Every structure is written in C-alpha cells, then in structure tokens.
C-alpha cells in the first residue's frame, strides 16, 4: 500500500495546471520556445556570456564541491537532478517523472525518464541512479571522496527494479528524501566518472554529467567555459523549456575583487557579476542593470545561541538580545530594500515557515527592562555589570557572508546603547572552521548561513539526539523541544508536520535560542539588461539554461 505525500501531490497538481497553461501559451505565442520568466521576449538561439565569479572553489570532485557556493553554478549547468525545486520550495519532476512512497516514508520508488544520456554516452538509467545514491550516502572516504553532507543518514540501500525504476529503502521515516533529490549536492554523474579515482575526478574535464552544457575548457583558479549540448531535451518542465539551451556558451571567469566585477559589467566587458556589494545595487538599478537577490530555502541569517555560556543561559538576556536588535536599520544601512526582515528562523519562502515577526520587533525599552530584571546594572561607562562581570558578547563574523562584518559592527553599536560590550572576531575560512563551532566553549553565538530544501532539516539541529548538531548546546535539557523534535522527525506527511513546525518556530524564537538578523541573500547577481530569461532555483543559483540575449 503506497501513496504520495499530499505536499507532493499538491505541487504535482499545481504543476499540471502550470504546464498545461504553458503549453497553451506556447501554441499561441510561437513555435520557437517559451520562457515564463520573460514572457515579453522571444528567446533566440546563439550568443555567449561571461559570468564573473569571486572564486571557483577548491576540488572539482563532484561530491566534495557540488555544495560550494561557486562550483554549484557550474554543476547546475553540467548536471541534472532527479527532481526540480523552485524558488518557493515547490518540488516537481525532472529526470524522475514520478515517484511513490510508502505510508511511513521508509520506502520510495522513482520512475525515470527514458532516453536520457550522460555526455560520455552512458545511459542515465536505474543502475546509474543507484550508483549515485550510494556514493552520495557513503562517498569513498579513504580515497578522499566525501559523502554528501545533507544526504539522509537513514539511507539503507537502493535497488534497480528495471532499467527505469529505482527502489530506495530507509532505516527510519525520511520525509526529507524527495526534496533532497533537488538539493544542489544531489547531482547525477556518469557511473564511469564515479568509478574514477579522486585525482581523475578532480579534473573537471573528465567528469560527465547529463546537463544542457558540457565543459569545453577550464583552468584552475581562472575560468570554466561551458558549451551547449545540442542533443539535450530533458530540461525540467517547471522552467517551461525542455530542449537544448539557447546560449552557445557560458564562461565563468574568476575576478576576486567585487568592485572590479561590477565595473566590468558596467563597462560592457562581461554580462553577469556575482556577489556585488549591496551598497552599489541602487545606482546599478538606476543605470538599468538587472539586479537579482534571490533568497534560498534555508535558515535566515542569524545566531544560534549557546545556552551553556553565561549570561546566555538566562532566558531574559536572550530575549533582550532578541528585542534589542534593530533589524530594519541593518537593512537600511548595510543592505537595500531587496532584503527582507526575518519572520522566523527559517526563510519565509520555505514551505512550512510561519510569520512570527512580532517576536522580532525592535523594542529597546523592553530589552533594557529585561536586562534590569535579570540583574544587569548599567555602570558609569554605559556597560552593564552583574556580580562584577561586564555584559559581553563576542561575535565571530561568518566568512561565508561578505556583509557579515558590517552587520556585526552595526549590531555592536545597537547593543552598545543597551549596555552590551560587543567584541568582533573575524577569521578566514580555515581558521573559522577550526575555532568556531556550534556550542563551542568560547562561542556564545554562532552565525548561521545554511540552506536546506526541506524544513524537516530543523529537527536535526535542535539537540544532540540521533547525532543532532545541538546548535543551542541544550543537549536534552529542554523537554518541550525534545518532544517537538521527535514529532517533526517522525511525521509522515506535511499536514501532520506543518502545525508542529509552527509551534517550534514560535518556541525557539520566544526562548531566544535563535536570534535572526535578516533573511539571507547569499547570492547577488548584477546582470546586463540584454541578458534575459534566467531562472533561480530553490538554492538561489542562476540557471542560464533558459536564458538568451535579447536585441
């Protein structure tokens, strides 16, 4: 007895409506193709674009690099996924045409599209999918090929029933499995490439995917040039186009200075600049450039508070922190109105996110009152003191978010007015990884920048149960949280899970376990006005599969 989850059937229904509308419109408009994002323009074939990017990441071993903010762009064009997740978190078919699950979400059956091939000629069949699932789950650790971090740890095995049917088994209910297939780590690679040793996999030109583009040339730390695959015709229906891409080539070129990336696009030397400084966006918009600030599905940018470190073991101090931050001022000063105030600790576009903005409003008086009640008295220098100890907060700026330092500086001014003494530490990526960990003994607040596809992910970060990440260093001390965690993890459908998620969001914010700052935009795009039709997916990557150059 199997049935599809209603979340998915809902999206399927919506999708059917969308696609039939698209088909009807396509008949009316023209026979050359159709792009929902830019209905006014007719896509035309040809053209080359240059995308300026701050880094091309480290290793090109697919498992080790697909989640990178930088390499993810290339993988998104070179490879396909089983499912497509759009910017609203809506899951729709791609290379898996349909799927089924059993009642308690421990067995899934995927039905694959026929006729799909990798660029090395190998068929993308059930056996290929099984090979990919296995390496996502386990990697080959002794060879230096890592597992995919967010792939469900409850995975048991996968079997090829026939050439186009895959059955996947889990040890425990895993509602998150289906959305995970649309996650940026879950890219399908040719079994031949998967079988290669790490040093071969690290050579990007030797890895074959099934995507609309193939790697023409690349140079470490310099560029990757992609050219379109002429026989491609299995694009995701959700983007309204399934044939070959329009643009002939895409070159990802590394330019490390943000201002130079932007100036290059301004002077017409390139087409897209990645990660521009938010301060420049307003004037760029006025000059007619296309600005995109897509939000990914995931946690908002904010702090996971370590409840083991005094004074943050005191709920009143945490609540003072929650109400003592002027989030609007952060948006006005560091960002632009394209950034959104947080309404929860997960982004508002995540299915299951609910609006708790009232808990996050700026009430400096209330914050001061809470601190007074907690026994923190303002001294002569404006710093609050209790038992001879000053009220301090040490922030560790997140190196993965360019604006993090500026936000930290601004918040330190805001909290300074309330009587906090705020210190800022900034490490490079490697040192940060070494020294800054959730719940670390010197880490009162850990700055979160993390995307996910399924809201069920939150169950895995709340406590230390089941190898949980224990973001708030609560262990299992908070029984309310433990209860919510278990119910969410074990939920078999979205209807059952959504009310639980709502309760959890309110509880976590009210307790001041998580202090949101703003909704996160980790990927900013400045684009030449003639380039149109790009699509942003659930993890905010721009896909130029549907893009074209307008006259």
């Amino acid at each position, binding site marked *: 007895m199997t049935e599809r989850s209603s979340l998915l059937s809902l999206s399927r229904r919506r999708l059917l409506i969308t696609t039939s509308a698209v088909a009807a419109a396509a008949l009316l408009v023209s026979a050359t193709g159709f792009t929902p994002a830019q209905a006014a323009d007719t896509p035309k074939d040809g053209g080359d674009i240059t995308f300026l990017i701050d880094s091309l990441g*480290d290793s090109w071993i697919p498992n080790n690099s697909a*989640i990178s903010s930088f390499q993810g762009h290339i993988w998104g064009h070179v490879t396909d996924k089983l499912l497509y997740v759009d910017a609203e978190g809506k899951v729709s078919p791609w290379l898996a045409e349909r799927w089924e699950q059993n009642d308690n979400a421990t067995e899934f059956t995927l039905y694959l599209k026929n006729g799909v091939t990798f660029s090395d000629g190998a068929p993308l069949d059930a056996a290929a999918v099984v090979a990919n699932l296995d390496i996502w789950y386990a990697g080959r*650790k002794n060879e230096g090929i890592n597992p995919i971090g967010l792939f469900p740890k409850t995975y048991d095995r996968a079997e090829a029933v026939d050439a186009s049917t895959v059955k996947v088994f889990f040890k425990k209910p895993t509602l998150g499995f289906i959305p995970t297939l649309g996650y940026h780590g879950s890219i399908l690679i040719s079994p031949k490439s998967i079988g290669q040793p790490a040093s071969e996999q690290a*050579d990007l030109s030797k890895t074959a995917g099934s995507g609309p583009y193939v790697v023409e040339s690349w140079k470490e730390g310099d560029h990757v040039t992609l050219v379109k695959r002429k026989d491609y015709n299995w694009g995701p229906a959700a983007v309204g186009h399934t044939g070959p891409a329009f643009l002939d080539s895409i070159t990802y070129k590394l330019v490390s200075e943000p201002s130079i990336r932007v100036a290059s696009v301004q002077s017409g030397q390139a087409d897209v600049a990645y990660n521009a400084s938010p301060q420049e966006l307003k004037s760029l918009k006025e000059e007619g450039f296309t600005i995109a600030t897509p939000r990914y599905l995931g946690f908002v940018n904010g702090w996971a508070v370590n409840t083991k470190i005094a004074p943050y073991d005191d709920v009143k101090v945490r609540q003072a922190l929650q109400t003592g931050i002027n989030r609007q001022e952060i948006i006005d000063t560091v960002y632009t109105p394209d950034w959104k105030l947080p309404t929860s600790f997960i982004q508002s576009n995540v299915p299951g996110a609910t609006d708790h903005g009232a808990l996050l409003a700026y009430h400096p008086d209330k914050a001061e009152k809470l601190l007074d009640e907690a026994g923190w008295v303002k001294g002569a220098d404006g710093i609050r003191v209790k038992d001879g100890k000053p009220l301090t907060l040490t922030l560790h700026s997140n190196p*993965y978010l360019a604006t993090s330092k500026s936000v930290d500086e601004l918040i330190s001014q805001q909290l300074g007015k309330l009587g906090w003494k705020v210190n800022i530490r900034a490490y*490079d990526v*490697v040192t940060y990884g070494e020294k800054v960990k959730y719940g670390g003994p010197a880490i009162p607040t850990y700055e979160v*920048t993390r995307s996910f596809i399924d809201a069920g992910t939150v169950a895995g970060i709340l406590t230390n149960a089941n190898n949980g990440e224990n973001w708030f260093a609560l262990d299992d001390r908070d029984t309310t949280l433990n209860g919510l965690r278990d119910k969410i993890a074990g939920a078999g459908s979205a209807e059952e899970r959504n009310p639980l998620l709502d309760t959890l969001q309110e509880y976590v914010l009210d307790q001041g376990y998580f202090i949101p700052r703003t909704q996160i935009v980790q990927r900013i795009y400045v684009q030449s006005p003639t380039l149109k039709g790009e699509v942003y997916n659930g993890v905010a990557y721009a896909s130029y599969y549907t893009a074209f150059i307008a006259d």
Partner: protein
Amino acid sequence: MSNAYLTYAAKRLGQAVVVILLAYVFTFVVVSILPGDPITSVLRNPQNGFSEEEIAEIIAAQGLDKPVIIQLWNSLTGFLTGDLGMSMRSNRPVSTLISEVLPSTLILASVGLAVALILAIVVAYGTRFLPKRYGQGLLRGFPSLFLSVPNFVIGLVLIHLFGFQLGIFRVINPDSFWATLFAAIALGIPISAQIAEVLIANLDKEAEQEYAAVARSRGLGQARLFAKHLLKPASLPVVTVIALTIGELLGGSLITETVFGRTGIGSLVQRSVSTQDLPVLQAIVSLGAVIFVLVNLVADLLYPLLDPRVKILGGQKRRPTTADEPSIGSTKAVTS
C-alpha cells in the same frame, strides 16, 4: 680558467645546494605549524552539515595524522626525486598546478623587469642631464616616491583609469597585451626605484672620475657620454640588483596578480594560503628559493669573468655583493 676560479665555483655550487635544502626544511617547519588543512575546511563548510564525528571519521580514513618527522622525510625525498605531491585542496598533482600557472607569472615578471629597467634608466638619465631648474631635484625624488606607494594602490588606479575609464584593456581578459603591460607597470614601479637608486649612485660616482671629465672635455655628446662611459660601468652593480629583485618580482606578483585577476603563482599562493594547502605552499616557496639561489649563483659565477677588477682570493669572491657583504636583499636599504 684558473684553478682558483674552479675551486671557487665548486664551493659556491655546494653552498647553493645546501641553501636550497635548508630552505625546503625551513618552509616545511613553518607551514607544518599551520593550524588547519584544506580537507577539514571543506568538511566544515556549514552548507555541508557534517557532524564532528563524521569529520573525525573522514580525517582518520585519509590518514592525515602521521608524525611530522615522517611527513618531512616523505616530502623531502619526494622533492629530491622531483615529486611534489598532491594538492590537498584540489586533489590534483602540485606539479600540474604549478606548470599551469608558471608561464603567466614568468611573462608578468619579465615584462615587469623590463618596465622597471626602462623606467630606471629614464629617471637616472634625467637626474644627470636635466638642467637643475627643470626638475632634476624632482626626478631624484622619484625613486623615493615609487618606493612609498603600495603597489596595490598603483594597480587599483591603473585598472580604473585605463581599464574602465579609458577602456584600453579588458579587465576580464588579464592575459592580453595591454592588461599585461599595465600589470607589469604596477609590479615594475617599486622595483624600478631600487634599480634607479643604484644607477644614480653609481652614475654620480663614475661621473666624478677623471675619465668622464676628460671625455667631456673632448666634447662628446651628452647622450653618448652617458651611454658609453657612464651607463656601462654603472651597469655591473645593476646586474647584481636585478638578480636580487627576482625575489621581489615573485613576492610582488602575489599582490599584482590578485589585483589584476591574473592566474599565476601569486594567485595560486593566495588560494593555497586561504585553504592552507601545505604541499602547494611548500612547493612554491621552495621554487622561489631555487630560482633566487640559481640566479644569484649564475651572477656570482659570471662576475669574476665579466669584470677583471674583481679578483678571487683563496676561493673567496669579491663582487659587490658577496657572502660577507651585506647588500644582498637590502638594495632598498642602501640606495634610497
């Protein structure tokens, strides 16, 4: 060739080998106290969501916990047999990474050196032959000025002026002729200052010597006088300075390549430092040391042959910068 010269050459060669090996060990010691490694840094990317246990398991699986002394031995024997190991960051052979980027840096460094030489000669010529009131004093200040401007500031100004305002080169195509030239100018300006200082000092000295005065009285043209009697003798110390600036060119390329977006040794260092990719850093620093030592070895060996005034006494060389003279690497210091 005299016996004394051969003894001297053999001794000098031996020294060079010792210095290269010691430089290798020294670098190994410094980089092995780096706190992190690229593998953990990839694992700790928050997007990955690995737990501490999983990270520890993966690290152990790759055997990254061998004693340092064994790692040094493996690394040193590898280096001696020409095997530079694998990059921990990109999982590709270090020799491949370096050979991919070396040509770009060599081009930048050679053009940079050419720019520096031309600039230095122009400035030096100017200080000698411009009438005082037409800015001779100002020209004499040029080397000081060139040494005082951070080369990333020069780079940023050049990019914005010539790349974006005037559109002379495409910033995203940094290997084109014009982009290379401007990067070379940014790299060459501080180095030209050092060469110009030496040139000016030696010109001043030579100019006072009698033969110059005699030549002048014979009515030689100023330009010919400069070229024939002054530039030639002054150029010997300049050769030495050039040998010494090899290190500066390599170091300077680190900043220049970053600013101009060139893919070269400098940007490879930047990427390797940010992920603490020890094998690559080790290889590059050793390469720098090898180049520096070899260039200076050649200069030392050529010197006694080029200039008869330089005598070899009991295996000791006597060129302006020898082991017992302080000027190696301190050209800035002695010339400003």
